[in-house]
């Protein structure tokens, strides 16, 4: 045999051996895998392989290390051992309880952790604690006396070796899920010996977020800054050190603090909810707050969904299958009614039943009892099905709804892994719960902002404005110290007085300067100036030094000759002075008159210039004997009136700028200078449209009850919007010139001055109707109208008519407010449109009743239905009964019936009209038909027409001080 052939043969043999050996190894590996599957459930398989836990004597194991050794031997290496949660879940599925795990067999949970410590993929603390929770452990089991951890530090220390420990917040949260609260964590000897212990144990966790979460959790569980400080102080722990080391400021714990723990008041953000409701809150803070609240929502939802409920899954499944497996006779034997009737309700299983199920499932009695006691009331039907109630009940109401442990059967091909599915469902529940909480919170925030925050803000703004106004007006009235040292108005009472005041002051200063000068005649000059000052007045200057008879005697030649030279010379000199002779005095008087006019004119010009064309409002403070005002003072400078009027003319522009939605522009003129040109308010305050398109209806004004003084009061009070609101329209709906008074009238009135403080004003009423435009409705917004009203100085308000809205029942109109129904002085409500109804005309002839044909349409503005009925003479016979029938509620009817004695459609119309008129408004039919506007017409050929509609017209009357203010709005949306 040549060498190549030999080599080939040997190679073949070697390959055969290798193949056989390889196959052996392959099979061995497969076999090993069968024992220790490589999927997530391999530990449970191992545990299952150990047999029913009821028969497994765990005390055979000295410690968990021994079990771990067994697992290691079987599994081959530590890396295949799975995570802690899986192990504990499997333990639970065997029926193991927390007592089994922690009592007796294991000295402490520290043993558990230590024993499993070498398993590198040991789950995190959260997983383990959740699993313990799933086994029924509560916080006392874990932290309580003698069972598990000696204290919190023990727990943390034991958990510290877990490389994927996610943070203290997770641990604390897990504690919370197990029912722990702040007291449990921080008080007494149950858990952490001290807060220092806690923080010391958590030293290794240095990331800010974790500590932040810890504090958040601390707060969520009811912890306050005081709790924190008290606990720390009791430990002699330095708060500052903790906070500094953990890079957390005291801000994170809630109250604004100095870091010394002296602050005990909560921050505003901790005492109030609602975005934007906090004074001084920035948008960034609001965003952070929202995010924080969202996280809190999520945490709460996670807590609600329960941790490790997957362990319930297996138990529930067992019970479900076990009970289904019982025969009917067995069920009766063990105390159930029957398989098809109520098997168990509300956890009222008999002891026999529980024992039977316990025996069949391998679950201990306590476990079965626990699950049987959780039957939810919601699953009414499940209660009728053997076992099903228990299964669902095991999942708990509003907590976790998970399917049974799937069994690969012939019918079902592929099912989800239980643990994965449980987690996914839990996640879904958390999402739903979080969304619900978010929505509720947003809703509350909006309501809070709308009904509290905004109101409070407005109140605060009004209060501050009032205070500002008070101070400003005080400054205006008393803010200036006069030259004589007294307080006076910031504005001058009169130009003349001000000039005089300044001139006198200047004169005094000059006299002082002269007196102090080096002039040799200084004393005389000072006296001269003083005398000159006294003579500076017109009265002093024109005062004659001689009597009138002296002048006459001097000018009489006969008598003049009797005077001696000296007397004549003195008299001549005296008479030469203008004040001592008639012509001179006349000239002086004339000059004074001209000067006074010129001064007054100059003052007026100055006033007009200063007021920008508006003269100051003055009042007379001194009159002469003839009643002439010789002295007046300014009460309102023209410049103030100027600015107020300027603001008033810009109201439409401001409303345009501040409009939120189209309906806010109802009644608002397009920005322009109309008011500036005419000094008349805009005349478009009667809305021609309804909600949206053209705006809601305008109000009818308060009629002739109003007086000019009212307007003046409003004007001087600065309530310009109210002024123009009242200016809005007259009772006939004509906008503008209220009661014949123009704005100029008001100005004149103000200029004349008027005591307006004692007037009894009628209520000031704002009545507004807003809603979407037609376009917005077509885009999907609800077709509604929002009516709001607010009356000032009103004792009460009433609806003047039926305020109609579309009912929840299709084609029904309801009165959300009835005629004369008392309303609050402020409020709002929503009406739904269009106003559709079911109202028809029926004719009964003998035993036969027919509906007279009618046509129904909805107005283009989508506000109301219009029904038209046409009745021909040919349809009327003597003796016919005609009924107007209005459907009410689900099945009731309101009916008005007449009998005609003539075969005339017009007669029917007339009779029906009379019948409706005669209805008592307090009767049910009267109230129902009172909602509708029904018109009856007949044409020349005798054909009768009945038109029916329900009007979206809303009218209100507010009463105060014995006076009424009425307003009406109409939804008449433009197309």
């Amino acid at each position, binding site marked *: 045999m040549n060498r190549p052939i030999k*080599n080939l043969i040997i190679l073949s043999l070697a390959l055969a051996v290798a193949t056989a050996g390889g196959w052996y190894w392959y099979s061995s590996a497969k076999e090993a895998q069968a024992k220790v599957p490589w999927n997530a459930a391999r530990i449970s398989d191992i545990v299952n392989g150990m047999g029913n836990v009821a028969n497994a004597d765990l005390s055979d194991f000295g410690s968990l290390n021994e079990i771990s050794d067994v697992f290691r031997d079987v599994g081959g290496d530590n890396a295949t051992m799975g995570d802690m949660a899986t192990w504990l879940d499997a333990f639970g599925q065997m029926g193991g309880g927390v007592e089994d795990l922690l009592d007796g067999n294991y000295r402490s949970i520290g043993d558990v952790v230590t024993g499993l410590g070498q398993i590198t993929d040991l789950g995190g603390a959260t997983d383990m604690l959740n699993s313990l929770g799933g086994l029924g452990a509560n916080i006392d089991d874990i932290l309580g006396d003698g069972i598990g951890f000696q204290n919190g530090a023990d727990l943390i220390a034991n958990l510290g070796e877990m490389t994927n420990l996610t943070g203290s917040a997770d641990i604390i949260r897990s504690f919370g899920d197990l029912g722990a609260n702040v007291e449990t964590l921080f008080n007494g000897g149950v858990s952490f010996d001290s807060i220092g212990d806690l923080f010391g144990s958590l030293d290794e966790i240095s990331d800010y977020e974790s500590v932040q979460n810890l504090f958040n959790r601390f707060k969520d569980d009811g912890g306050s800054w005081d709790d924190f400080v008290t606990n720390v102080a009791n430990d002699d722990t330095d708060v500052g050190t903790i906070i500094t080391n953990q890079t957390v400021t005291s801000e994170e714990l809630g109250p604004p603090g100095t870091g010394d723990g002296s602050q005990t008041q909560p921050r505003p953000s901790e005492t109030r909810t609602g975005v934007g409701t906090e004074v001084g809150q920035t948008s960034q803070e609001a965003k952070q707050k929202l995010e924080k609240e969202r996280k809190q929502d999520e945490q709460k939802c996670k807590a609600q969904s329960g941790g490790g409920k997957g362990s319930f899954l297996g138990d529930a499944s067992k019970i479900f299958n076990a009970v289904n497996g019982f025969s009917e006779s067995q069920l009766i034997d063990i105390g159930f009614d029957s398989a098809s009737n109520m098997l168990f309700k509300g956890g009222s299983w008999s002891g026999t039943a529980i024992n039977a199920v316990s025996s069949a499932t391998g679950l201990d009695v306590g476990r079965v009892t626990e699950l049987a006691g959780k039957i939810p009331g919601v*699953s009414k039907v499940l209660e009728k099905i053997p076992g099903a109630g228990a299964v669902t009940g095991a999942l708990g109401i509003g907590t976790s709804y998970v399917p049974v442990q799937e069994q690969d059967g012939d019918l079902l091909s592929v099912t989800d892994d239980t643990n994965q599915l449980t987690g996914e469902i839990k996640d879904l529940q958390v999402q739903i719960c979080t*969304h*619900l909480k978010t929505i509720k919170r947003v809703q509350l925030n909006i309501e809070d902002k709308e009904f509290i925050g905004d109101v409070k803000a407005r109140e605060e703004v009004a209060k501050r404005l009032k205070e500002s106004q008070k101070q400003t007006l005080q400054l205006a009235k008393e803010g200036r110290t006069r030259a004589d040292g007294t307080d006076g108005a910031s504005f001058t009472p009169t130009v003349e007085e001000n000039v005089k005041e300044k001139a006198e002051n200047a004169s005094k200063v000059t006299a002082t300067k002269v007196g102090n000068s080096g002039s040799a005649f200084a004393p005389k000059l000072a006296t001269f100036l003083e005398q000159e000052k006294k003579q500076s007045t017109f009265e002093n200057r024109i005062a004659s030094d001689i009597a009138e008879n002296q002048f006459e005697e001097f000018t009489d030649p006969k008598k003049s000759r009797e005077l001696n030279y000296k007397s004549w010379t003195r008299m001549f000199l005296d008479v030469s002075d203008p004040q001592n002779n008639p012509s001179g005095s006349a000239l002086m008087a004339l000059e004074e008159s001209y000067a006074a006019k010129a001064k007054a004119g100059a003052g007026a010009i100055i006033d007009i210039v200063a007021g920008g064309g508006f003269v100051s409002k003055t009042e007379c403070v001194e009159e002469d004997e003839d009643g002439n005002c010789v002295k007046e003072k300014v009460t309102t400078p023209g410049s103030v009136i100027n600015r107020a009027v300027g603001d008033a003319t810009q109201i439409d522009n401001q409303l345009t700028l501040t409009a939120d939605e189209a309906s806010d522009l109802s009644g608002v003129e397009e920005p322009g200078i109309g008011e500036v040109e005419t000094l008349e308010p805009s005349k478009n305050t009667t809305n021609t449209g309804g909600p949206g398109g053209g705006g809601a209806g305008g109000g009818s004004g308060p009629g002739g009850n109003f007086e000019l003084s009212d307007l003046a009061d409003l004007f001087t009070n600065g309530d310009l919007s109210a002024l123009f609101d009242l200016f809005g329209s007259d009772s006939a709906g004509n906008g503008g010139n209220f009661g014949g008074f123009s704005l100029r009238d008001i100005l004149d009135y103000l200029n004349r001055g008027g005591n307006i403080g004692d007037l009894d004003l009628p209520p000031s009423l704002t009545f507004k109707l807003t809603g979407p435009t037609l376009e917005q409705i077509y885009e999907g917004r609800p077709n509604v109208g929002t009516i709001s009203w607010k009356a000032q100085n009103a004792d009460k308000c009433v609806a003047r008519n039926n305020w109609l809205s579309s009912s929840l029942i299709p084609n029904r109109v309801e009165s959300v407010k009835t005629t004369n129904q008392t309303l609050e002085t402020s409020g709002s409500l929503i009406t739904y449109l269009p106003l559709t109804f079911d109202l028809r005309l029926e004719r009964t002839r003998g035993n036969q009743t027919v509906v007279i044909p009618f046509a129904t349409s909805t107005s283009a503005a989508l506000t109301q239905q219009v029904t038209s009925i046409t009745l021909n003479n040919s349809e009327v016979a003597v003796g016919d009964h005609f009924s107007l029938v209005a459907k009410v509620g689900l099945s009731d009817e309101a009916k008005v019936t007449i009998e005609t004695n003539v075969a005339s459609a017009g007669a029917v119309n007339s009779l029906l009209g009379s019948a409706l008129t005669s209805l008592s408004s307090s009767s049910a039919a009267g109230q129902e038909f009172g909602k509708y506007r029904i018109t009856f017409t007949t044409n020349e050929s005798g054909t009768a027409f009945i038109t029916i509609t329900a009007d979206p017209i809303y009218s209100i009357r507010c009463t105060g001080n014995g006076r009424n203010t009425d307003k009406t709005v109409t939804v008449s949306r433009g197309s």
Partner: protein
Amino acid sequence: MAISLPSKRFWIFAIILIVVVVFGLWWLGRSEKAPVESGSIITATELTPEEKIINVQTLIIDRLSTARGLEEFDYASIPDDEVRVGTQTTENRESVSTYAALMTQALASYNQKQENEAKIMVDALDTRDQAKVLSLLSARTMYQGIVVKLESISVPPSALAIHTLMITSLKQMIYLLEPMSQILDEPVLALQASEAYLEANTQFFLTLNALNQYFREQNLQFSDDNQIKATF
């Protein structure tokens, strides 16, 4: 005849080959294919939590600014009507087999089920996606079809409890899908309904498993084509 042994180089080659083959086969046995993903009810939503909350807030603000308050779900409204199905007069292996065949037909459309409807609804809310809402209505139609078929089946007395519960659960799911489909208009109503839906869905899933167990105990065999993909 003296047999000359192969060369040293040959033995080295052979040993290496054997080692490679053995290791390869061992590795093949060791690395069994990963567990088959059996579907998931959760698909990653790419929106951040902040984006989701903004979407929800925007929806609520829009909703509250236009009309009445948010509607809430009335759990008492969930129907629990009596289910009326015909029962077989005699029960034997043949009748149970017939029942099984009819059940596989009735439940066949359940294979169309993709994501859990509650999840679809939450996604619709997060993304404000109307298309997802429509898929809820599609699922509703599918369940209605199943109910019609289930109600027409004559049921063995031994399976009556499971069969009845299955129909009841489906009817509850159908009922709840209606308010759930209003998620973009009445989010609170829909979310609260979805909580009840998860419960009803679980009931249905339980009965499906119970049915599976029932047929297993009856030693019935199903072809691959007749298997139901039980996805929650």
